[in-house]
């Protein structure tokens, strides 16, 4: 009692099967091949995924995808690479639940499903001509890396680029080697901090807000972009208060429970907003009156 809606298979990379494209709706993922996996930290892995058809993923920094592991389920994952014209995008994924546990057991060459990209990303055009302070807490660095690397690729469009990144311990920094080479290149001002003293760490110790107390920034031409665990935002906002930044110049990438990714299923609701649709990137000004925004 129904009709199968069959779509014309598109020609593409040799070896791909036309039948893979039957019956597509907005809820059906496209196949993505895992081209590279690397261990980033004890709990997080790097995945580079190539979408072969219909085209490479067209996304902005700050957007996310719904990643499907067949037989297990879907998880919302931030894109961690800048859009650079290649057909591969990158993600840094924590092993924390069923889907990510299954994903961490996959190998290069495996196929996952991708839906997206979803959400409002960082307004890279609006940010042009400004100094940027990126505040990353833990895995919050994952989407910020997309923005950071985008700005470094378009370096002359932006002023100072400052990254302030706090992790629990030295092993918990994502892309640590890459960060060290950015420090050496001098293209961005990067400050790392860990929560508690650790053997072999001679850098800054203290939660990430301790690196925000003495920023030499020119307020009228600075944006602050924040991403980290839910508990972090209110402390960062309170510490930033001393700079009297206009609330439209503080951008927050929030996490909620995304399932459908398109503002329908309801799980990501934050008062009147669907975080997957109106966000995940919000200007503080737009959400500061929402009681459920900072919990």
């Amino acid at each position, binding site marked *: 009692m129904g009709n199968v809606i069959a779509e014309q298979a598109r020609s593409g990379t040799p070896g791909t099967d036309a039948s*893979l494209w039957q019956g597509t*709706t907005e809820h*059906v993922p496209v196949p993505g091949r895992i081209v590279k996996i690397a261990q980033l930290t004890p709990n997080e892995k790097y995945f580079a995924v190539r979408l072969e058809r219909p085209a490479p993923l067209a996304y902005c920094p700050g957007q996310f995808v719904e990643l499907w592991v067949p037989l*297990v389920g879907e998880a919302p994952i931030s894109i961690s690479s800048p859009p650079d014209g290649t057909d591969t995008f990158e993600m840094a994924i924590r092993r924390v639940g069923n889907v990510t546990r299954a994903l961490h057991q996959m190998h290069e060459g495996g196929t996952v499903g991708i839906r997206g990209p979803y959400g409002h990303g960082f307004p890279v055009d609006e940010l042009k001509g400004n100094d940027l302070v990126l505040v990353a807490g833990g895995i919050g660095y994952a989407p910020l890396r997309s923005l950071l690397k985008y700005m470094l690729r378009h370096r002359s469009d932006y002023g100072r680029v400052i990254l302030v990144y706090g992790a629990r311990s030295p092993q918990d920094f994502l892309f640590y080697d890459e960060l060290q080479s950015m420090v050496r290149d001098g293209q961005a001002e990067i400050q790392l901090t860990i929560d508690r003293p650790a053997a072999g760490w001679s850098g800054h110790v203290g939660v990430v807000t301790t690196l925000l107390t003495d920023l030499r920034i020119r307020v009228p031409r600075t944006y602050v972009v924040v991403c980290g665990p*839910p508990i972090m935002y209110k402390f960062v906002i309170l510490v930033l208060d001393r700079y009297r930044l206009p609330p439209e110049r503080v951008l927050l990438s929030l996490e909620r429970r995304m399932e459908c990714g398109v503002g329908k299923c309801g799980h990501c609701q934050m008062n009147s907003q669907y975080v997957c649709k109106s966000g995940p990137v919000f200007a503080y000004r737009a959400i500061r009156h929402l009681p459920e925004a900072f919990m």
Partner: protein
Amino acid sequence: MAFLKVTRDQFNGFVAHVGRHYEVHGPVVKERFLDKTFHVFGRITDPAEMVIHYTWTVFSPKKILMPQFEKLYDYSAGDFGRTATLDTTPRVIFGVHNCDMNAVNLIDWVFLEDTPDSYYAARRQNMLFVGVNCQPDADCFCRSIDWHEVERGYDLYLHAVDSRMMLEVRSPKGQELLDHFARGEQPSEAEAAELVQEENRLFCERQTLRMNTAAENLPLLFTASYESPVWDETAQRCVSCGACHLMCPTCFCFHTADDPNARLDGGSFVRNWDGCMMRPFAEISSGENFRRETPTRLKHRWYRKHKYLFQRVGKSFCVGCGRCGRECPVDIKPVKIVNELLERL
């Protein structure tokens, strides 16, 4: 609008004819328990089983438009094949009350305009609605919340008082159905007007439950009540069973999940009804839960109905059907919540 006077036999004949070309659903008795009779929308094979006069059905037509458990696509794990199937079965739903028709219109706004959904669109575009005048009970409050009149959505409307029945055309498709399948008499204008008047009189007599404020004040009331003690107090009783959003004709949140087969070589990706009253609704993988405590969830559900969605569509998203109040095992009633908020301002 054209009216057609029919006897019950003629009505049954109409339904039988329609049933040869459409899948027909209508109100039937599901069971009787103590002094209560439970009606549901069921598949009609014998038109004589269709109930004309009833107070409420357990589920609204939402159950047919947006099934409780719905497959999004089938997949085979090996070759990554995915196949989505849309349900375009032609259906006619009989016996829909005004509140439920308005609820369908609100869900239409969600899934046809706001966030288009192919699965919903396929069903909705092939569905016709035949209304019937209602017998409100003590929990209904559609009039108070200004959803007792229906501007669109019906294809036909059955006016029924005692044994008098008249079908009224409400859309071109409805006219077609009548022309092809119905037998009856043309009533005079006076006869039709009298029946409608009688029906309205009975309706007003019975629909007595009122909120103590006009419907258009609801967003303002809720803006003023975010810190009201009513939420904590009401939540003391709430057990988050979820009956309210299960029964609600305008709740549409859903959960998506992978449903593998026993051989683990494929399966389906599915969605099923979910609701913000369930504790894990706003929980993320880190263990953080943005609405862990019951008062926050209770608040959120009512704020969606009377404020957030109200401000998007211009009227409350609650149609006053009364199902949540009737079903709630601890007697949390929608009108009582509003009236208590008013009292405790």
